[in-house]
């Protein structure tokens, strides 16, 4: 039999205002197992905690019920108090008589009645509580960063600087991501390459960082502190350690008409290529879908011109297996396809481009060497129309676009418009917008400069239709403030396409058993208080894989994720949550129902030997819970048909005792 102490908190007037706390402590005195009951103004204060500690000693208590606020608020506090008094911390139960009682009732009578019932339920539960001890698991002191854009780069650098080894897996031949494709960055207009490429070099030279470029994560097993990851290093048909990046092979390759992904197909590359001059690693890659030698065995020029002897047509995909303590997802974003937006004629005219294509057109390393020329005839455009929110904030056309705001478009459009007016003052620039959203440091000042100093014509309203006619683009739009229809003959139209998570994010989330929202952005453990952690232990989020964000925000989040990773990797052992599922093997019938519902992949099955009364041995398939992975959600206990699965600290018997106490 337990010896239970009940401690009713007034919480000033928060509880005592609508609950007769003295009546509650009095009523609970007569509950089974209760040997002591009292009330106090602030139970969480030092004085309040001392009351509990003294009572434990004086009355030899084995269990504690605190009738107070939500366990989210002070359960940890009172568990510490219990531990300080020499009790197992899991012998404490909280009856929430504030959020779910005093705050929602106006009448003292009903409030008190409910508080007593909640207290009785907690007492009933504590009667069945058993001491719980958290388990421990070791930590592999190495981190994996998936994605080598600015988010992955910053996270990797911060973790590596703290002294832990980091591997970056990047699916493209080079790290750098989207930022490497940008021209200037808002609101300071510093050149993206000038601030990014030194960081890329830092990554390449850091003794704690390995880069697996042109590689993809194939398989993830294990759990926090102990992930087992298989990485596929795709054959690039060039020996990475020997190639000097001299580019002789690229120059001589006869396959010249391969659309250049880095310039979004606006110019061509060779079959053997280095994506851009500052690529890291600066190593050539052969595109097997374009290379004659790989397709038909006829050519081999690159191998002949390579003085280092780095070309290897026989290279195979390589599988790397490694253990990691923490995984950071930094898979980034892409602009959505414009295929479903035929009203903007993206597929009908080469002069209708996306904003990312515009970045390449104004970039000195881009297809026009930074001269703003329209793609169809390489003429200088005199009238440019920018359309914002193409596919963003699009709830009326959900099958075409995204419901959310892509967040970065207002600012980069202001940047583009300003740069055009600055370099080519003879150009008319229109920006159509639904709202201009510029909440950020120096953002609104930047936008206002575009309007006030650079004379960009901002028009509130959306473009309804764009039709190519001759060498003009007929733009039909509405000016909502002037309440009139506009017809503009444009030379170039730039669409601020919505952004969406990279396509690799969804399968990766499945491998990680990490949750995603309906838009395929990774979900954070708490939207406000744990924004860089996935609900899955040991998995952290960096950059736009979690939601649209600009570069400063991405870098902040990347460093935050790194801090969380470092906090994990410095530990030698991880203490788990003892409130985890545990199967009764004698009752388990091996049906796999629990395995299927487990969102964390914590349940596996093994064949286990059971001695029988006749001294033979029977082998049965039974569920096993990995204590380091289980988060104690309880889904399996509900799914288990034979009632074999129970959640420690929330046993079925305890829950039923609570229900009985409430319904008595």
């Amino acid at each position: 039999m337990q010896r239970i102490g009940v401690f009713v908190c007034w919480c000033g007037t928060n509880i005592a205002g609508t609950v007769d706390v003295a009546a509650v402590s009095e009523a609970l005195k007569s509950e089974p197992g209760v040997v002591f009951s009292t009330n106090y103004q602030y139970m969480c204060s030092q004085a309040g905690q001392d009351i509990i500690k003294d009572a434990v000693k004086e009355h030899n208590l084995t269990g504690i019920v605190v009738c107070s606020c939500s366990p989210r608020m002070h359960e940890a506090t009172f568990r510490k108090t219990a531990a300080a008094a020499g009790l197992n911390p899991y012998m404490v139960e909280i009856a929430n008589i504030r959020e779910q009682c005093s705050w929602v009732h106006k009448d003292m009578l009903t409030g008190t009645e409910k508080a007593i019932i909640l207290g009785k339920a907690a007492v009933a539960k504590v009667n069945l509580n058993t001491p719980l001890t958290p388990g421990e698991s070791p930590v592999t002191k190495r981190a994996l960063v998936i994605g080598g854009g600015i988010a992955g780069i910053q996270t990797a650098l911060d973790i590596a600087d703290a002294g832990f080894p980091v591997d970056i897996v990047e699916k493209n031949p080079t790290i750098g991501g989207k930022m490497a494709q940008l021209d200037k960055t808002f609101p300071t207009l510093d050149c993206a390459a000038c601030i990014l490429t030194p960081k890329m070099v830092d990554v390449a030279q850091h003794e704690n960082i390995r880069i697996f470029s042109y590689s993809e994560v194939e398989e993830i097993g294990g759990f926090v502190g102990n992930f087992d990851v298989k990485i596929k290093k795709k054959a690039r048909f060039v020996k990475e350690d020997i190639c000097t990046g001299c580019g002789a092979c690229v120059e001589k390759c006869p396959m010249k008409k391969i659309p250049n992904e880095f310039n979004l197909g606006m110019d061509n590359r060779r079959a053997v290529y280095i994506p851009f001059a500052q690529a890291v690693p600066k190593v050539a890659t052969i595109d097997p879908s374009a290379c004659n030698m790989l397709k038909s065995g006829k050519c081999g020029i690159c191998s002949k011109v390579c003085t280092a002897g780095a070309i290897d047509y026989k290279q195979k995909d390589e599988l790397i297996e490694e253990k990691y303590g923490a995984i950071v997802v930094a898979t980034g974003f892409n602009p959505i396809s414009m295929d479903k937006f035929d009203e903007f004629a993206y597929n009908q005219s080469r002069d209708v481009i996306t904003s990312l294509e515009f970045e390449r057109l104004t970039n000195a390393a881009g297809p026009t060497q930074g001269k703003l020329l329209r793609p169809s005839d390489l003429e200088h455009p005199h009238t440019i129309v920018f359309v914002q929110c193409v596919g963003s904030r699009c709830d009326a056309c959900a099958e075409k676009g995204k419901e959310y705001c892509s967040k970065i478009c207002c600012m980069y459009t202001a940047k583009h418009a300003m740069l055009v007016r600055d370099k080519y003052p003879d150009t008319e620039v229109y920006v159509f917008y639904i709202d201009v959203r510029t909440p950020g440091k120096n953002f609104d000042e930047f936008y206002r400069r575009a309007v006030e100093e650079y004379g960009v014509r901002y028009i509130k309203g959306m473009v309804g239709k764009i039709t190519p006619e001759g060498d003009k683009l007929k733009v039909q739009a509405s000016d909502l403030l002037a309440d009139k229809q506009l017809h503009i003959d444009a030379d170039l139209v730039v669409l601020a396409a919505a952004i969406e998570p990279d396509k690799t994010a969804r399968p990766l989330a499945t491998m990680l058993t990490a949750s995603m929202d309906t838009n395929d952005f990774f979900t954070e453990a708490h939207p406000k208080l744990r924004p860089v952690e996935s609900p899955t232990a040991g998995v952290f989020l960096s950059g736009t894989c979690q939601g649209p964000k600009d570069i400063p925000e991405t870098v902040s989040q990347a460093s935050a994720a790194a801090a969380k990773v470092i906090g994990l990797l410095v530990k030698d052992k991880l203490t788990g949550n003892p409130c985890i599922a545990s199967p009764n093997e004698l009752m388990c019938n091996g049906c796999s129902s629990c395995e299927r519902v487990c969102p964390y992949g914590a349940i596996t099955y093994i064949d286990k030997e059971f001695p029988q009364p006749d001294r033979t041995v029977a082998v049965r398939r039974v569920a096993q819970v990995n204590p380091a992975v289980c988060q104690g959600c309880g889904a399996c206990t509900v799914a288990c048909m034979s009632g074999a699965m129970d959640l420690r600290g929330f046993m079925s018997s305890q829950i039923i005792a609570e229900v009985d106490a409430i319904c008595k």
Partner: protein
Amino acid sequence: MKVSYFPGCTLKNKAVILDTYARKCAEVLGVTLEEIENWQCCGGVFTTSKDEVATKLSSVRALKYAQDRNQPLVSVCSACHNVIKQTNHAIQTDAEFSDKVNRYIAPESPYTGDTQVYHYLELLRDVVGFDKVKEKVVNPLGGRKIAPYYGCLLLRPNTVMQMDDPENPQIFEDLIRALGGEPVAYSMRNECCGGYVTMENPEFAKSKSKAVTDNATAFGAECIVTACPLCKYNLDKNGNSVPVVYFTELLAEALGVKEDETNA
């Protein structure tokens, strides 16, 4: 192949040639249009008010007639097609409407929206096939520059009509090419002609029609082709005198079944 055919009122008076050539060409292409017995006016406009049932009954009767014969239902007039297709969609998706209509008509078995509804253009594209149409051309249009004019009703609302991309349709263009003509690309091809506004505000309707015809001729159109009697009416009356013809006329000409103008 036999299909149920809903001609519609206008095709019996103002737009007789839209009807006669549709039938003749169908025969050439191996399709027999079986005119629905005792069909009634489609109502002209699909009313979006939820409690409006009476004006949609005619469409339901026609759809039920086709279903009883296990035939698709074909119409030529953009407006009729729009009303019938939207009514069919309402039967499929709005249980209350479906229930009301079936109680009112009280057929032996309730109509549940199973009839396949085609516009004549869809019949050509999806059932006959434009390649088959091309094979049957005896009198190709000789590269004549023809401006396809879609208007509103053929393509919208897209979620229901599902005929072609409402912003960048190709069905007329493909037909014109199959017949040996050259489709003219111009921006006003799926803008409104003025529609029924011509009754209320003739000046405004005129500006709409004028814009369409001016835009088409500016890009070298020798004629404008349409499927809609109301579009033809407005463009003829208010446009810039560029000839406006029904697509069935061009089809008949190319297939060699067009009567001499003097006999028509």
